[in-house]
């Protein structure tokens, strides 16, 4: 139970997530390949909520990758689209659900809000006065 991705999913906030489309519902199964065994995580998305459980049931979208790849996704260090292009992820099923993972997993650490740049520009002017 040590991996980052598994911990992330275990601790996933079950509350409402306003960034998910309310009309989108579906199931995703994440198959995390490890040494000799595959861990199955099952995400049920409905009503802007995500429930994560352990199950090998069939889902609308199956996402398969090495555990390390999921760990990097769960820490925002790997971009989903790049992982897909690199063939680190393989998919089967309803591809439209894939981009929801981009909202469920975090973005890269240390990213700035654009306003931080605006504030910096204004502060620069203040200093030069």
């Amino acid at each position: 139970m040590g991996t980052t991705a598994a911990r992330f999913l275990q601790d996933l906030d079950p509350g409402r997530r306003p960034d998910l489309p309310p009309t989108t519902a579906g199931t995703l199964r994440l198959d995390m390949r490890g040494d000799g065994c595959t861990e199955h995580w099952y995400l049920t998305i409905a009503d802007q909520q995500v429930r994560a459980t352990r199950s090998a049931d069939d889902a609308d979208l199956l996402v398969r990758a090495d555990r390390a790849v999921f760990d990097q996704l769960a820490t925002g260090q790997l971009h989903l689209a790049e992982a897909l292009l690199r063939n680190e992820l393989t998919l089967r099923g309803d591809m439209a659900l894939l981009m929801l993972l981009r909202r469920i997993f975090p973005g890269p650490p240390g990213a700035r809000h654009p306003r931080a740049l605006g504030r910096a520009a204004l502060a620069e002017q203040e200093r030069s006065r």
Partner: protein
Amino acid sequence: MRQEQVHVIAGNVFAISDAQGDMEVDPQAPVGLFSFDTRFLSRWVLSVDGERLNALSRDDMTYFETRFFLVPGAASHYVDADVSIIRHRSVHDCLHEQITVLNHSAKPADFTVRMEVGADFTDIAEIADVAQLRPRNVHVTTDTHRAALVLRYERERFGRVTTVRSTAPAEVDGGGLTFRIRVPAEGTWETTLHVSMTMQGEGDRDMRADLESHQQNVRDGMGDDLTAWLSRAPQLVAERDGLEETYQGALAALAALRYQPLAYTDRVPVGGLPWAMGMCGRDAIVACVQSLAFTPELARATLRMLALLQGGQLDDDHDEEPGKILVQLRYGELAAFGERPNALYYGAADTTPLFVVLLDEYERWSGDADLVRELRHPARLALDWIDEYGDLTGDGYLRYQRRNERHGAVNQSWKDSPDAIVDAHGRLPAFPRATCELQGYAYDAKRRGARLAREFWGEPEYADRLDREAVALKERFNRDFWLPHREYYALALDPYGEPVDALASNIGHLLWSGIVTDDRAEAVAEHLLGPQLFNGWGVRTFATGQRPYNPVGSHLGAVWPSDNALIAAGLRHYRFDAHAARIAAGIFDMAQTLGGAVPELIAGYERSLTKYPVQLPSAGRPQSWSSGALLMLLGTLLGLRPTGEDLLVNPALPPGFGGVELLDIPGRWGHTDAYAGDRSTRPAGRRRS
């Protein structure tokens, strides 16, 4: 002078060769066979008995199919050649080329036919950016028994494979296929070479089945698909010579530039040949707005696709924020390994408001309320983005500044070259920048968002709020951007609120968005058609008489049909019908003078000086938003405007343009016709049988 290039296109699969059909690496030009941004053939050279071939003629049958008629040897002696060769090339999801050797003599003849084959698997982004071209280890496998040559490139799990197969027996070596043939007297020999392109990870499909389905597709599917596409679009009947052909050409170009993205079921427009053969959010949205009266299916597919890929996180590398609409989607190796941020790149401040504009405009034409309800959430996220992430300094203006300082776009609206936003003296403003047209788009998005909220989402309070914000923005904008002594709007504001005083075509977009107050519209219209901006073909991106003006500078003087289409539409919004007609006449003159697909831009030289539109090497064609521009200009001349459940037609043609009829315009009204007579020629006859 570079030799003529010949292309065949099917979505984001395309092949560019010389006039003989040969492809050889050119460090500066994207010659070869490309798919999903990767060059799967960099060498494809045909010879007979060791001699290269010469083209006698060519038949460009459709955008996806071309025939080359060739003879061996130099031009001096080919007239009485005993042998000729036909290369019949087409693309779909792969390329196939039928080679026919004709022996014209009365005796059987022996020939050695050779096709040299090479693949360097270069990412097209590297060719655009020459310093980045890298050598790759390509693994070659030959199989003479099955007449197949396989070229494979792998990096970690990323793999790209080119497979060349011949229907006729061949000797295969690492550099190509050789055919030692005997052709009977007055007889022919032929083979078909199939080139399939695999992105590893798609699963093991039977190659032969793929090839057969491809042949089937080219013979039936592709041809039928084009015919159906053209028949769904309105029919144009025009008195003006050549206009109907130009119109058909624009429709065919849009058909050629549709592609089906990975992980998506419908086809959306790519930017255009050669550099933008992938999804470009801005180009796609504009092309869809332009073509709503003609090919509305593009808009529906594009809106859903962009919604699916809407930004979800703060991400500096990809200049992404929640709710933002993407500007670029690429599949090449640089994108895959994060060496360029363009697997999904969001560095644009215009795409997000324009997404809302397109959604509303699409509904006005199509009456497709279901899509408006389906896309409520992404549209609201987009509207939220404008204020939450687009207002960088808190002054209420939509601004941009890249966070990816290595590879991000410096300028993040349609004039995206690094030097495009500059004042009349050539000084570059600081970041974050608020260009004027972005404020127009934001204003328009809020007003249109308000309509959608009120009529479809059942959110009257939200609608009122958006309307109030739009009114306030218009007022603020007219106070801060207007340059009273020059009587035009500043190109931009710097972060401290100082105007960037250049006169540029961006002010035309303000008319299109409706943010110009009525009392200032005439001054704007006069500037647009004045000698500094209008060059006789169209409105220049940047006015003459200012230091940075450069007639061959993409955004500092050149003329873009896509820009002009929006400007002409804006002029008609404010009832400057004659101004709009002059622009439309100029752009149609340009398109018809050049022939073929209308280029993305031409030089800004005065028309009376050059007489002929000066093309620029940087200008690709076909381009979706250039071809779309011709459609939109036609709609503008006819004054097509959906009003309630009907289509309003209010023509204003340029003098001497000749009558125009546009039949079976699709929309919420079913199909309807528009007629425009030209009183300066003869009364328009209704020639519909």
